[in-house]
């Protein structure tokens, strides 16, 4: 089964990316995590995301299109990246999610990927 591991981060986490004193350890943590998933043969795909300040939200309504700067929701933790993994069951996916650096500093969400009909 495929699961998506959604890695949420705090503003402090995002700030670590650009702080010369912390960026090395920050990226090393994610790099090690990605490598571990790959070595275990569970990695399917993934991407990191630029901080939420760079987000743009689009809505199309009968009155026209709105393009709003900023993320969709005002929340304390924002999606910082995700991994899609292939594992036998939810428990295993949860174990992998727990190892993500975001689980220690913010939160990590596990979602089954839906099979597309047809």
């Amino acid at each position: 089964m495929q699961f998506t591991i959604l890695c949420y981060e705090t503003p402090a986490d995002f700030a670590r990316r650009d702080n010369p004193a912390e960026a090395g350890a920050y990226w090393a943590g994610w790099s090690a995590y990605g490598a571990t998933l790959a070595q275990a043969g569970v990695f399917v795909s993934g991407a990191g995301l630029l901080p939420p300040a760079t987000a743009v939200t689009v809505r199309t309504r009968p009155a026209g299109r709105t393009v709003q700067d900023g993320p969709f929701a005002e929340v304390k933790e924002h999606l910082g990246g995700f991994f899609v993994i292939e594992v036998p069951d939810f428990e295993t996916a949860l174990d992998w999610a727990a190892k993500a650096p975001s689980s220690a500093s913010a939160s990590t969400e596990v979602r089954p990927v839906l099979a597309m009909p047809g």
Partner: protein
Amino acid sequence: MVRPRRDEVIDMKASLLALALALASGPALAEQFVLLVHEAPEQLALRADSGAAGEVYWAKYADWGKEAAAAGIMRGGAPMVPVPAGLVGAAVEPGALVLGGFFVIEVADAATAAEWAAKLPAAETGAVEIRSAIEAPGM
């Protein structure tokens, strides 16, 4: 293996040449963006609808996906169960939009990404958040 016809080979060569020129011309011409698809619970419920409404829901996404694939911009994506699996059955706040899936596309710039986002079915019923992707470490 089927051998390509001569005119196809020439087409391929022209394409490869154009690609090589594009790659050699300096700054990256394409950027990856992640489209985070937020939908209302009523829309998400259509996924499990075995009737016409469910067919229409999936057909709209299939059409968008085909168009994106034909344009050569599709890099990935997945529809997800709209609540964390550990919370399946938990009530979703009425009216709240929920992250239901994502697409990864590669286009020239943010404005082009916004054009594609606006064409997603969720842009009409919910909201599509566009985030620049970075090369994820360890991949």
